[in-house]
């Protein structure tokens, strides 16, 4: 019964995600004005920045779940932490790709070291990419989960510090940033917030979906093993 309810809720969440994202991007492309300096290429801002914000929050959420895992020893928190990192890493990759496209559109280059958010994301991505070899290199399930949690906490503490450090590393004059969200006119801010909400819902939907399918395949494995034992 609980599982049926959960799958209905997941479906509702997915529908809400599609609705909000659809609305957000319609607004972004049809309602929001074009940027005076960057023109149409600036529209990718509505994709890039929400991806970035949600991805970073995802890493922090993963760290919080990792803390819960260490405190309680309950493996469901480890699963949540793992999936959160997984989805956030994918979002992070998308941040880098959309960032490159934006850089090309704005400045004519595919990469810009003077863009602090892009550089910070590169470093964060490189760090979290090691999460997978780390997990695969530890065979004992309990230890693997515990060590992954310690990593998630360490990396989560690292993320804000890293952003600060990269920002400090920029030359004091002439940093090259994408248009910031501060000082946005309402006609841009409103679509941006809708897109941000949509992206957060997308993250939640993907995490929930992956958790569900992992639970299902774990159940399947258990049933299979039980059948083999009795056969």
């Amino acid at each position, binding site marked *: 019964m609980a599982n049926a309810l959960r799958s209905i809720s997941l479906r509702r969440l997915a529908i809400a995600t599609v609705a909000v994202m659809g609305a957000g991007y319609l607004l972004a492309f049809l309602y929001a004005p074009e940027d005076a300096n960057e023109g149409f290429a600036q529209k990718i801002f509505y994709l890039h920045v929400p991806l970035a914000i949600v991805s970073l929050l995802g890493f922090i959420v993963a760290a919080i779940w990792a803390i819960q895992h260490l405190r309680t020893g309950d493996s469901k928190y480890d699963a949540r932490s793992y999936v959160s990192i997984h989805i956030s890493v994918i979002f992070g990759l998308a941040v880098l790709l959309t960032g490159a496209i934006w850089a090309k559109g704005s400045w004519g280059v595919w990469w810009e070291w003077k863009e602090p958010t892009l550089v910070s994301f590169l470093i964060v991505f490189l760090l979290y990419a090691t999460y997978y070899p780390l997990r695969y290199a530890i*065979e*004992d*399930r*309990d230890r693997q989960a515990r060590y992954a949690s310690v990593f998630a906490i360490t990396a989560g503490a690292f993320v804000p510090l890293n952003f600060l450090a990269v920002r400090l590393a920029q030359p004091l004059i002439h940093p090259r940033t994408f248009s910031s969200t501060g000082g946005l006119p309402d006609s841009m801010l409103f679509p941006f917030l809708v897109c941000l909400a949509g992206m957060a819902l997308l993250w939640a939907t993907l995490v929930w979906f992956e958790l569900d399918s992992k639970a299902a395949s774990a159940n399947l494995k258990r049933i299979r*093993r039980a059948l083999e034992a009795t056969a």
Partner: protein
Amino acid sequence: MERTVAVETGPVTDVGEPAIALRRLRRDFGDRTALAGISARLEQGESLAVLGPNGSGKSTLLRVLAGLLRPSGGEVSVLGCPLPKETHRIRGRIGYLGDQPLLYRDLTVRENLDLAAALHRLNPEQADIRIQTLLEDIGMAHRAQDRVAELSAGMKQRVDICRAVLHSPDLLLLDEPDAHLDADARTRIQPLIAATPERSRVIVSHDRELATAGADVVLELR
């Protein structure tokens, strides 16, 4: 920097509390079950012999009792403390001799034992005397300044036994204590590892005779 951990000395297990109580203890390693529902009870001052073929889980059992491994199922109580919840309360009251000596190769015999004494927060003067006495008892006093790497397997075993009993534990957990030892050495270690009214012990051995001699309880693993 360190928080002081209260270490109780002397027999603190309530009279009547068993030294060890196991109920359907289970330990899994992934898909493999090493211990499948072991039950046993050992009263204070008694000696438990654990027998069984290779791979039957004898060493695993010892490690669970030492608090080094968490049980996967069932109940474990050592010196009146349920594990794993109260593992911290039995540390310092257990003397563990594993299948590998817990000695740093590049330290001397004496340095290893001094380190063990410091880790157990023993009074330095008293520890000094005790180490000296133990080394003489097992016939290693003349090698005290040699690095462990230079010792034979039998010598390492004897030093490891000293390390295990150094802090006068209430419970000894011994995995093949007579491994690599000649007859003379075996005689020397007997008084060090014997069960006394204040000290219970669990002894794992291939040698049926050695283990069951003086054993109050015998546990056979398959």
